[in-house]
């Protein structure tokens, strides 16, 4: 009898213990990714004036199922020199956060690379540098050569080996990469 009593008390204690659910807590707050880069806009302004050309990649759901949207506003003019600047945004936040500033503040740990496909007659030069005078590349010049077409790829590497001779020996990890179809007319 004593055993039975002990057993039943233990069982009831167990059930009570399990049954206390907490319904009073509110809903948890959403997390907006802080360091996601959703958008890269490359603005190419002709040296002698004229309409700027913009190349843009935009992926508002980050690593969600939707693919990035890529737009190119126009073709390059043969023989023209362009001042290029790159803007990175996190548009999941409102207002959108400018990531370029962060990249420029940590210039020693970042570098942009420009990769031109073999068919395309375009050359690039770095215009801004980090504290050690190694390239950073959020600003650059682009010289369009003869009439041609191909792709231009922008890659932002985090913690690359600096200095380097290009993407092959830069190491680090890719923070952003996007390829644009480009034509020189």
């Amino acid at each position, binding site marked *: 009898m004593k055993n039975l009593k002990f057993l039943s008390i233990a069982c009831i204690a167990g059930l009570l213990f399990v049954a206390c659910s907490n319904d009073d807590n509110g809903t948890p707050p*959403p997390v907006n990714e802080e360091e996601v880069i959703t958008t890269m806009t490359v603005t190419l302004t002709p040296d002698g004036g004229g309409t700027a050309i913009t190349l843009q990649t935009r992926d508002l759901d980050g690593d969600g199922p939707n693919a990035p949207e890529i737009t190119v506003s126009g073709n390059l003019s043969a023989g023209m020199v362009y001042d290029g600047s790159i803007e990175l945004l996190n548009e999941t936040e409102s207002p959108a956060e400018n990531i370029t500033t962060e990249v420029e503040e940590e210039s020693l740990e970042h570098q942009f690379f420009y990769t031109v496909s073999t068919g395309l007659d375009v050359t690039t030069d770095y215009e801004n540098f980090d504290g050690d005078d190694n390239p950073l590349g959020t600003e650059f010049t682009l010289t369009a050569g003869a009439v041609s077409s191909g792709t231009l790829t922008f890659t932002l590497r985090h913690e690359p080996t600096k200095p380097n001779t290009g993407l092959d020996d830069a190491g680090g990890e890719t923070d952003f990469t996007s390829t644009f179809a480009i034509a020189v007319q």
Partner: protein
Amino acid sequence: MRFYVIVVLLCCSIPLFSQDCDYTLSGTVVDMHDGSLLPGATLIVAGTEQVVQTDLEGKYTLPNVCEGTFSIQVSHPYCLTKGYTVTIAGNTTKTFRLEHHVEELNQVIVEGKAYGNKTKTVYESALSEDELERFSSRSLGDALNSLSGVSSLNTGNTVVKPLVNGLHSSRVVIINNGVRMEDQEWGAEHAPNVDINTAGNVILIKGAGALQYGGDAVGGTVVAEAAKVPVKDSLYGKTLATAASNGRGATVTSQLTKSYQSGWYASVQGTLKRFGDFEAPDYILSNTGTFERNASLRIGLNRFNYGLEGYYSIFKNEIGILRASHLGGAQDQVRAINGQRPLIIRDFTYTIAAPKQDVTHHLARLKVFKRFEGLGRLSLQYDFQRNNRLEFDIRRGDDADKASLDLDLETHTLMLDLDGGLFDDGNFKVGLLGRYQNNFADPDTGVRRLIPDYDKYDLGVYGIVDYRPNDQWLLEAGGRFDYNRLEAFKYYRTSFWESRGYDTLFPEIVVERLNNQVLTRPRLSFYNPSATVGATYSFAQAYKVFFNYALTSRAPNPSELFSEGLHHSASRIEWGDLRFDPEVGHRLALTLQRENKGFGFSINPYINTIGGFMVIEPTEVQQTVRGNFQLWEYRQTDAQLIGVDIDASVALGSDFRFNHQFSMVKGYDRTRDEPLINMPPVSTKNELVYENRKLNNLRLAVQSEYVFRQNEFPDTNFEVFIAETQTTEIVDVSTPPDAYHLLGLNSNIDVGLGAHSKLTFGVTVSNLLNTKYRNYLNRLRYYADDLGRNFLITIKMNY
């Protein structure tokens, strides 16, 4: 003590009239805990002073006993002496049960087992304290890896997750000091948070035969128990220090136990482990250091009829993850796989930087038991666990030092178990379990929650009976039912929510729609029956055949249900599925065992058929602004695992012994008719041991481990466009690495330090030939070679 008992018995006994004195009292003396037979026990009949000893099978016969009531004192070298009252009225059979304690001090060599069997019809493998000590500076996963049928799923060399007969994570239940570990065990890169130095022995039960621990152990159950404390006045302890060349680090572990004849005892233990970057044969594996700090305290009272125990342990481990394994996307992965060396190799350091894990696990347990005459042993246990898991990724700006993952998992469990004898030849176990678990994902990380906030409620009830109809047969049957309820708050990306069709399937769980996320409130219930039946047949003295069938069902874990996003440490996007049902396994296992000092073996074939098996595998490549990532989706399929584990041991002369192990498992996806991913390759371990007790317990061992190449694997390669070269390249993530062979040496010798203390020196070399190899089951195999040669020096002091 024995003297007093005799005196008391002498005083109490009332010699009765001697009428018929030609009766026989016979029977067996067994261990109260596991029913094992106790040879060499002494029985003294008070009054007549007849003395008899049990034979090798624990049997005794007292001839010419008179009618009447007698006091009989039963004693055994390793047991508490006990007095019984027996009434004789004709030839009588009586089984005496003694509380079996182990003499652990002063090198009393205990032949036989220092632990009870957890199941009766499943073959169990075990690691003794000596074997565990050889892994003092490593992990539980490494120690288990030395058993046949166990391999490990590694992330580098410090995150070692046991893989039992091809299954891991939520399918392998780990019981640490009687508490089921709730430490976010679902993740492939989450190692068990158990300090191997707290364990006095570790038992592995393959499959789900041990229903008292849960019905969801599709792969197996690992039971780590502290060493038993003897009931006598004593103070003892040990300190073990290991220094290792690879990682340039050391482990120090120490424990001290005080025990009293009254049954009270207390034990404290602590471990400190610090390693810097480990090294492959040709280079440093940058950022692979570890820093582990553990402590535990145990206080209890152990009487024959009742007892209680309080236990608390803290486990804190900081683990560096190979820097070169942290990648941006598939393009980076191509570079890493094609490069023969890791992309980042730095100078040796003890500093652990991002990417890293920092895990703290608190475990507290309170247990009381009472033995009721005619009913059995009733125990009640409450335990609390708090697991905090921080994962740090390479981050930018203000977030650089902030964790990317910060999960707090709290678990309360209450268990009531009754363990008793039905009649002389049978036993039963029944129990109830209630558990509440809460997970909190800190939103301050600035990274979307990998595992959502949730509350989980579990209720379980089980019953197991075993019956021994005769000396040869033992039958066992058990059943269990578990109810799980999970209530979560989960934010889905709107794009994912819609692309999955959840918006039409589960519109009722939407709480709120935000800009690009949907807050949902999934409430899921799962009903999980499990069962086991088995038999053991003993024959020809040394042989035993175990047969066991187990039905298991496992509810999907939060990772399988809710994953939705980039898993950085795996460099892939993972998607779970809210629609999953529990997976149901049927496992048939057969074991033929020969227990013999000269030549012993066990052969253990098994077949495990699992319906609704939750598997994660790559389905497509997804574009993101960081490049392409492989998308890994969980899906349910029908799986089958077939394998065999073989152990053999043969004595060569008096001092040499040869040990052999062979493990093979084949896993197939029966729905798609292709091999399962991450199945352990065939492996064999062979060991030649020289042991000489007369020569200060000198032990020398040469070990060889040969791991074959895994030839059966699903092709999960994918293509990616590389801008630099304007080419499309195949990312070869599926081809397994080549076979490899590792040699190791192990030696130790004792030095006496007076009557109560001794020193043991040991030298170990692993990967003696500094072989370069990569392991198919190491998730970082794409990025770097495995560990090179390692010299270890161990000093152990028992006092």
